[in-house]
């Protein structure tokens, strides 16, 4: 008996430590786990778990809280794999927890180099897993593989130079035997790239520069040597279509951000989505959302992959849904990159339509200048990096949006100095802050946040859930037509995904700056979300 028991436990442990790529590629078959940053490769943030429903969601009850020792914004999405949760303690610690009790199995602590200088938060948005390793990108631009059982480093490579402004802040993406990461640093005059590393050894397999080099196609879209310091960073995890073997990544703003005078041209592949061959990193197609951007409209949103029958056609088409920081919602054919639909989802003044090839027609006056130009959406965008969701159950695309939001864009001189900020001006608020710290004084007509449901076949709005403050929270939907999200005010809530009706809420007392996720252990469904400096986990009252 004793021998049998030992054998049984040993088998369980061995099974739990192996997350083969076949499991990740079919993640929708094991909805009890959350195997990638966005749940699975199509990045819909849609769960097939059904225990929590619109009828019983009011019975959600707090199960446990993990208090991170950090005051940084908590933007991570945890993974849950075979009874272990892996998440981040900012900036770059990895914590393995029991997802039922919140008790900690192990912690890996990383002290980033003092050279690290991420522009907008000393944080990480999550980890990836493959086999028996967990992968972490750090704000000093390292990629580290950890042993999933004890958190000890297995290998550690420098992706790029932290002192030059490079950082890794997103959760890596594992495809086959490779770990894929991109570099942040769009405010420091970097030259962006996406790399693939051998998951077993850490050896770099390929690199795709997000700005083409001299002689390469697309380099002509940068005047002179401006391509060398043109930014085009990567700071949110991409997606993957295993049938096409293409991986899709959103690319950040060109640099200097607010002064395009010395980078005449479209500035490819800034503010674009690129489709890369996952084995070689070779570019298959691209689509640029905001050519020659001067408004900091990073296109780092998570590419959401869906199969939809578009109006006027008879076949189901492989598409990509994209709510962009520039205020427009897009449907793009993900096999070819063909533009199918583009429509504003918030107030937009920088463009007034598309040409026949899907290129936005810019309003001539919509340029950053020395006096300041008023543009909608403002610098933080109609949305930003916060993940949207697509529900195959409702057929709707859900986006966290900033409405009635504008900035004055002011152009100033910019001189490149390695490792220093390279902005060339910046945005200005139009009105005094109507939300200052913990205090909100806004009135109607001033910027606000909204969960907006969009019909991807038409781009039409279906419903809104408005909030009194703007939001940085992501969205998750479930097969029971629930939608979970939150906002800056510290509420975590559930809506009916069919009509936006509020079904449940909890006041967590800290800004929700991440996307909720869900998992199931021993038949019990849990929902997790970060707010303030802590991770909160809910399940139905028993």
């Amino acid at each position, binding site marked *: 008996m004793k021998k049998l028991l030992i054998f049984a436990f040993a088998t369980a442990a061995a099974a739990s430590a192996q997350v083969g790529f076949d499991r990740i590629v079919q993640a929708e078959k094991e909805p009890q786990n959350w195997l990638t940053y966005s749940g699975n490769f199509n990045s819909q943030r849609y769960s097939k778990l059904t225990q929590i429903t619109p009828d019983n969601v009011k019975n959600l009850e707090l199960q446990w809280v993990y208090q991170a020792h950090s005051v940084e914004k908590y933007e991570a999405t945890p993974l849950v794999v075979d009874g272990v949760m892996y998440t981040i303690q900012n900036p770059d610690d990895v914590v393995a927890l029991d997802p039922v009790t919140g008790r900690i199995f192990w912690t890996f602590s990383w002290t980033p180099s003092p050279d690290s200088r991420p522009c907008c938060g000393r944080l990480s948005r999550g980890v990836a897993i493959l086999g028996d390793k967990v992968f972490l990108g750090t704000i000093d631009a390292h990629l580290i593989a950890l042993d999933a059982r004890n958190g000890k480093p297995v290998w550690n490579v420098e992706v790029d130079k932290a002192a030059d402004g490079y950082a890794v802040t997103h959760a890596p993406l594992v495809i086959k035997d490779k770990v894929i990461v991109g570099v942040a640093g769009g405010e420091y005059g970097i030259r962006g790239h996406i790399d693939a590393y051998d998951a077993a050894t850490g050896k770099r397999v390929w690199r795709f520069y997000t700005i083409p080099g001299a002689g390469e196609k697309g380099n002509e879209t940068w005047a002179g040597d401006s391509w060398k310091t043109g930014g085009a960073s990567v700071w949110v995890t991409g997606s993957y279509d295993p049938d096409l073997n293409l991986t899709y990544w959103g690319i950040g703003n060109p640099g200097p951000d607010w002064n395009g005078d010395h980078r005449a041209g479209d500035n490819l592949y800034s503010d674009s989505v690129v489709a890369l061959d996952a084995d070689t990193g070779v570019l298959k197609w691209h689509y640029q959302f905001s050519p020659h951007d001067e408004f900091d409209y990073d296109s780092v949103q998570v590419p959401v992959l869906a199969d939809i029958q578009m109006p006027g056609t008879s076949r189901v088409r492989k598409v990509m849904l994209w709510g962009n920081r520039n205020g427009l919602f897009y449907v793009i054919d993900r096999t070819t990159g063909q533009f199918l639909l583009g429509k504003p989802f918030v107030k937009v003044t920088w463009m007034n339509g598309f040409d026949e090839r899907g290129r936005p027609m810019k309003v001539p006056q919509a340029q950053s200048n020395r006096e300041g130009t008023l543009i909608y959406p403002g610098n933080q965008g109609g949305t930003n990096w916060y993940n949207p969701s697509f529900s195959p159950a409702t057929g709707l695309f859900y986006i966290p949006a900033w409405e009635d939001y504008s900035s004055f864009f002011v152009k100033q001189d910019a001189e490149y100095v390695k490792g220093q900020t390279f902005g060339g001006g910046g945005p200005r608020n139009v009105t005094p802050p109507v939300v200052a710290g913990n205090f909100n*004084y806004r009135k109607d007509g001033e910027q606000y946040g909204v969960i907006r449901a969009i019909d991807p076949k038409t781009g039409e709005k279906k419903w809104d859930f408005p909030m009194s403050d703007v939001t940085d929270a992501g969205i998750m939907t479930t097969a029971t037509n629930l939608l979970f999200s939150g906002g800056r005010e510290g509420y975590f809530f559930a809506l009916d995904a069919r009509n936006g009706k509020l079904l449940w809420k909890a006041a967590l007392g800290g800004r929700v700056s991440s996307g909720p996720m869900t998992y199931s252990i021993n038949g019990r469904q849990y929902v997790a979300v970060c707010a303030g400096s802590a991770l909160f986990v809910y399940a139905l009252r028993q």
Partner: protein
Amino acid sequence: MRKIILALIMAGSLAAQHELGGTTYTKTDIDIGNRLYIANCIYCHGPDGDQIAGVDFTHAKFPRSRSDDDIVKILRNGIPGTGMPAQTMPEPQLRTIVAYLRSLPAAAGQVLPAGADASRGKILFLGKGQCINCHRAQGVGSYFGPDLSDIGMLRRVVELDQSLSDPNAVIMPENRMFRAVTADGTTLTGRILNQDTFTVQLIDSKERLLSFQRSELKQFSPIDRSPMPSYKDKLTAAERADLIAYLMSLKGISQP
């Protein structure tokens, strides 16, 4: 008439541009810099920028810096060994503070007449002006309106003069008034303290701290005009100067 308004707006906009050291700043830059200055600098440097010995922003006296870039550098790094801390805000914001500092000499002429007297102003504040019916200063008066106990550290003469003559010219968001109608039909007027998607918090004219669920209110809407009357005709110019002198003397209450 429309043309006149346009001309006025243009004049205002031109007047607001400042060109020093080759850099032109817009009114937007100066306004934002003003807010950042109030939030980060004013408690040491004072509203006129002359509270630190040897430093006087209103008279363009910057002992450690000449150019705008020098000032940005000092803001970013602080001055070791002094009380001047490094500011962590991004450079565009630092530049707006410079814009504001460069705008201060234009208001240097806005000083009180020689005879303005703070003690007479205090009597007006407590009596004829009826200021304490809404405002509070140094532990006396109503909680309903903005507390003015440290207004002399936050505002310049020119700004207080404008508020007395035309209270609607600038209403800071934190001083907004709202009207709430409860389920039983009771109408309340209050200064907004906070709100979110589901709740609102006010202090009302009876000085009560109130919190409501939005769902239990029939109406909740801003009152766009200030409840404060204009003192342009209620007080003489000399009285207004006395009152401003008193307000400028209010530099906060020492903490117990």
